[in-house]
């Protein structure tokens, strides 16, 4: 007797895979219907100024991405778990470590500490958007490769984004200015000397390419 011939009411014969599929499907249906048919969370909210729609178009790395964003969602969460851009790291999630640094309109921000809804109309650049379409690395990335700037490199994408942003405001920094400019990022391997050396080389590469 094959499994298919058995009556479907017998739960002991539902395979794990099928069970998980059913749960996922029903969960999706429930949450989708909750989204479509729920009433306003607060009475009269729709008529108030500044009410927010969850569906938005986000400009990430030059692409317009349609995404459904919760009101309390931070940009880091949207980038990593809605858009799959996991190059942006979440370290402390408390605006202390800098691993989640991205550029918003060319300015470095901690993406863990800004609501995605706040940046709806802005241009977001993450580490994934640095290299050119043909795969050429950004000069800052190339400098990190050439200097072997990091050990574990969890903090690297944050450091690179902070450096790219800083070099836009100060393309020819001294080492001390650079250290101050990227002081909002932490490296727990304590590799700051090599990081600064990489980023100073990055400044040279940037000048060569521009």
């Amino acid at each position, binding site marked *: 007797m094959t499994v298919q011939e058995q009556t479907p009411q017998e739960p002991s014969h539902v395979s794990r895979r099928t069970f998980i599929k059913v749960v996922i499907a029903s969960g999706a249906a429930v949450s989708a219907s909750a989204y479509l048919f729920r009433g306003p969370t607060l009475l009269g909210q729709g008529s108030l100024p500044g009410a927010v729609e969850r569906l938005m178009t986000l400009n990430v790395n030059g692409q317009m991405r349609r995404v459904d964003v919760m009101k309390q969602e931070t940009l880091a969460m949207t980038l990593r778990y809605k858009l799959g851009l996991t190059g942006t790291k979440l370290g402390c999630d408390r605006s202390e470590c800098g691993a989640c*640094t991205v550029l918003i309109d060319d300015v470095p921000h901690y993406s863990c500490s800004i609501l995605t809804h706040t940046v709806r109309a802005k241009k977001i650049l993450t580490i994934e958007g640095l290299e050119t379409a043909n795969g050429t690395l950004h000069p800052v990335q190339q400098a990190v490769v050439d200097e072997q700037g990091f050990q574990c490199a969890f903090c690297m994408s944050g450091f690179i984004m902070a450096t790219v942003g800083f070099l836009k405001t100060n393309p020819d920094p001294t080492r001390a200015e650079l250290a101050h400019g990227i002081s909002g990022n932490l490296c727990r391997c304590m590799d700051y000397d090599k990081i600064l050396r990489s980023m100073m080389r990055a400044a040279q590469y940037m000048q060569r390419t521009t």
Partner: protein
Amino acid sequence: MAIIHDVMPVFELFQPTTVDDTLALLETYKKDAWVLAGGLDTFDWLKDRNKRRKVVVDLSGVQELRGVKTTADGGIEIGAATTLTDVVKHPLVKEKYPILMQAAELVASPQIRNQGTVGGNVSQDTRCWYYRSGWSCYRAGGNICYADTPSAINREHAIFDANRCVAVNPSDTAPALIALDARMVIRSSDGERVVDAETYFIGPSIDITRMTVLRPGELLTAIRVPATWAGAEFYFEKVRERQVWDFPLVNVAAVLKVSNGTIAGSRIVINAVAAHPVRLKAVEDAVAGKRRNEETARMAGELAVQGARPLAHNGYKIPLVRNLVKRAIRGEAQARA
């Protein structure tokens, strides 16, 4: 307490584009509303589940709250939601009030200054870790101060004006603004009121649960700096444990008018020593008309620490205040981090 790495609990979000709309929302939701500016203080509270509001009103779209402009009296008006980076970079601030530029530059990290606002910096909550960890202390509406028990760790806490709560105000721009005799413009749906920067901050004896005079429904919209102290000699120094970026252990902001080596007038303010920035009126009076020399500096330093009451672990703040005030009077070369 464990650090929670998850999406914040749900809230309703509003993103008004005008001050009037913002005030209407604050009026509608009163105590249920949380004003979000840069969010660097806000998100800690919400992420840690230690404070919660039904409604968050995001000011990021309110353009009229941003920017620096000149006022009729020759001073400047800074929109409350102007970022610290914009304050630091503004030519008017640099030209007339370098003390404010320096104070804002010493706040936290570049990313935080790019997003954090001057209104948020002066209105931020205290950093007392017992309070911020969600302990039910006086400031949180409870019945005890965990920072003032025999085993408490209170290195960063108050030496002045403690009343049950021993937390301190951590702002760097607040003492600079008080030294410059700034005014805080506060609006609500009832209208506008303007308070001195000095009285904007309140201690636990006035209200133990708030750091400022802002009431639910009110919004700090602008900070006006009069021309009175523009171009005066100034001194700002921030002492912190970690030099790269940290909250102050003590900071001092002083503006002085000096003619022929005599101090004609001054305003001297220290912070991170009480729940509000402390203006040293007695020191200002004592140094008025005195020669600007070592003797006056020493006298000012001694006077500054009169009445200080240290806790178990923050006695070091007394010599720190004494020496910072001394240096402010001497006007030594700026100690930059």
